[in-house]
Every structure is written in C-alpha cells, then in structure tokens.
C-alpha cells in the first residue's frame, strides 16, 4: 500500500497528520505531506485508511502495486 496527497486538493485541515502521524506531517503552513516514499507498513494500513476517510477534501489517494501473473498492475483507490 502506498499513500499520496493531491497537492491541488489539500487545504491544510491536518486530519491526516493527526490521524496517522507515522505517515503524514505538516509543512510550515499546516498542509499535509507524506513522510518518505509513502509506502505503508502493513501494521499502519488501517491508520492510512482512516486518514483517507477523514480528509475533508478527499485529497489522499491510496494505491497498490499488485503483482498479477508476474506483471505489476497498479490499482488506484480513494
């Protein structure tokens, strides 16, 4: 699982970095940013989904790199 924030939609509510501070952090104006490369450890997947479900701007996307028959297919979901 991987998370990303749509910069055009983020309005700085801060729900992501309060819900999942392991995955998101604020910049100097309070907008949310993904920490590191956005890859979510399995133990944090539930928190990542909660962050998505609480973002008022629907600005967080979750994607999965799923190997299908040896070929990587990418599925997006938000």
């Amino acid at each position, binding site marked *: 699982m991987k998370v990303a924030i749509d910069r055009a939609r983020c*309005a*700085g509510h801060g729900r992501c970095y309060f819900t999942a501070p392991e995955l998101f952090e604020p910049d100097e104006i309070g907008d949310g940013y993904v920490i590191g490369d956005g890859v979510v450890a399995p133990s944090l997947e539930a928190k990542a989904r909660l962050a998505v*479900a609480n973002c008022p701007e629907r600005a967080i996307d979750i994607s999965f790199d799923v190997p299908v028959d040896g070929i990587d297919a990418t599925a997006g979901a938000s």
Partner: protein
Amino acid sequence: MGHHEPVADWARDFDHTDDAWAADPYAIWDELRGTCPVAHTGRYGGAWLPTRYDDIAAVAYDTDRFTSRSVVVSEFRPPDALAPAGIAPPISSDPPYHQDARRMLLPIFSPQAVEKLEPATRAYCEELIDAVRDRDVVDAAEEYAQHIPVRVIANMLGLPEADADVFRGFVNHVLEGVSLPMDQRAEGMMALFGYLQGHIEDHVARPRDDLISFLLDSELDGEKLNPFHVARTIALLLIAGIDTTWSAIGASLWHLAKTPHDRERLVAEPALMPLAIEEFLRAYAPVTMARLVREDMEWNGCPMKAEEWVLLPFPAANRDPAAFERPNDVIIDREVNRHAAFGLGIHRCAGSHLARMEMRVALESWLAAFPAFELADPAAVRWSEGQVRGPRTLPVTIIRG
C-alpha cells in the same frame, strides 16, 4: 433580535436570525433536506440555503460563480471598490488575490506555532477556573468559554486584554446585529475600525513582537501592506477567532453537562479527547458561511440572481445522512468523521489548528477541575442567533464527590 417577521415558510421565506433557528436549526435543516434541499428567502435582498453536504461543498468549491466578497448575510453588501482584498482579507478575497493574502497568515496559525501557545492558554483556563472553583453554579459560557479565545487572540495580536468587552461588543454587532438597519450596521463597523486604527498607529510608532507588527511588516506583491489592509485582517481575526471558538467550547460543555455517560467516559479515557473534539466539531459546528452569487444563473435548477446570498451551513452538511452514519447521534469515539466544521476548499478556517488546541485545553482543564457537572436549568440555556451558533448562557451545577 426581533427585527424581523417570524418565519412561517422555511422553504420560501427562511430567516437564519429567527428564534426557531436559534432554538433548533437541525430540525429545520433535516426537514428542508428532505423536502426542499435548496431553500430561498426574499429577505436580505434574496438568499439561498442549501442543506445537503454535496450542495454545500459544491458552492464552497465554486469560487468562479460564488464570490466571498461578503460572508455575513445582512442587508449590507460591501462595496466592490474594496476588491480584490475585500472587506476582511483574506476571507473576503477571491482567487487569484486570495492565495498570497492567506499564505502570509498561515505560518502564524500552523500546528507548530499553535503548540507554543498551549502553556499560556492552559494558564488562562486555570485562572478562570480558580475564580469559580468553590461555586456551586457556574455559567460555563459566560464565565469560562467566552474568555478563552478573547485572551488568546488579544495576546497574539498585541491588543490589551482589558479591552475584551470592547472586542466582544464589536464581534457581537457584526455577527448578531445582521437585522439592524444598514446605517446602524455601518456605524458599528466604523467604530471597530476606529478602535483598531489607534492601535495600528501605536504599533507603527512602536513596533513589537506581535501579530499587528508582523502584519505591518508583511509584504504582498512586493509592497508593504497598507494600514487599512492590516486593520481589515485584524478585524477578521477578531471576528472569526472569538465567537466561533467560544461557541465550540460552550457547545462541547453543554453536551457533556447533559450526557453523563460521555462525560464519565471522557474523564476515564482522556486519550479519547481528540476523537471527541472532532465529533463535537461535527455535531455542533458553530459556523455557517456565506457567498454572493456573482451573475444571474441557474444553479441546480435554482434561478439565482446576481448579488443574492448563498448560506453555507456547514453544521447542516455535518448532519446529512448521505454523508454520515447516524448523523444526529453524538458518538464521541466516531472514527470516520469527514466533517466540514472548518469549511471546505481554499477558505478552510485559517485558525482551525488554534481552535482545536483551545478546545482541547479548555475541555481538559475544565474536566480536571470539575469531573462531574450538569445543566443547572436546561431552560436557561440561551443560544446565539445568526451565522455562529453556540450557547451564550450555560449555567451548570458542579457535582461534588
């Protein structure tokens, strides 16, 4: 305030200053959402009222067809001549001007900056509690909640705390005096700007480490902000920073006073506080915003005329069953809570992180001192009228163990 005819038909002649709205707006919104999801009134020169989450969001995001030139519905529409900043930048500014005028303020209200204000906020709360600690009945709105944001914002701005009553008078006039005749309304605004002008001149002569001096030293498009822009932004911070947070703290205490199970749970499980605060913000969101229709158009089948108002009742959005499960139940550990208490889109409340900190500290301090309390007289609770909703009189009885 009784300057208007009572409402008989909420779909075609609504009035957000009506006593029935102040008493229980949720019933009105629930009824409209099912029967007439975008209501209209001829009052205030024409106004529309969407009550569904999706419609409210759509207006908030549509900054092309709805302007923020004014966000407080009354007979008074601020002159176009104040554009692009508007009467209280950046809340009254539209894109593209809005972005930089807002960007300038955000670092002051970032979570990191707000954290530094927490010890002083806690000290105010404890001082207020000390003054009433031995009493049996305390007005949690008048003697507690209302003072917290006034002191926080006065200290941030660099205005004397002793002028608290003066600020509250101005704010009350702007937010609750919306049914007053236009000349009285204009007089109230002039009094506010007259007051601020004196303090701004004093800061120009003697700069110091506060928000007024910061604004006077700030630049927009390579030029220092003029003192009139600074005055209008300060007016915004006073108006947006006081009644709103006072309302949110008061409504939370009202809920806890009448819901012993939630109060006991929050005392026993203080780690629930962040979720509980988001739920209080959802269920009792204080702020209804507004826009003006830019040009005649049909919107969702509604024939909207230029210069008509559109109310954005974020508290109604937060009670929409299409967006929230069990919307009228307050569930203090609700985990999925995409509420719109601080608005949506580019005008997201710039002070939201400050407001959350003030709410948390105010509730923690209160519960530490008074873990058990109840409404002294439910009938004595009085709610504000207009676009900011919260209890203004909230007598509670302290229960001693």
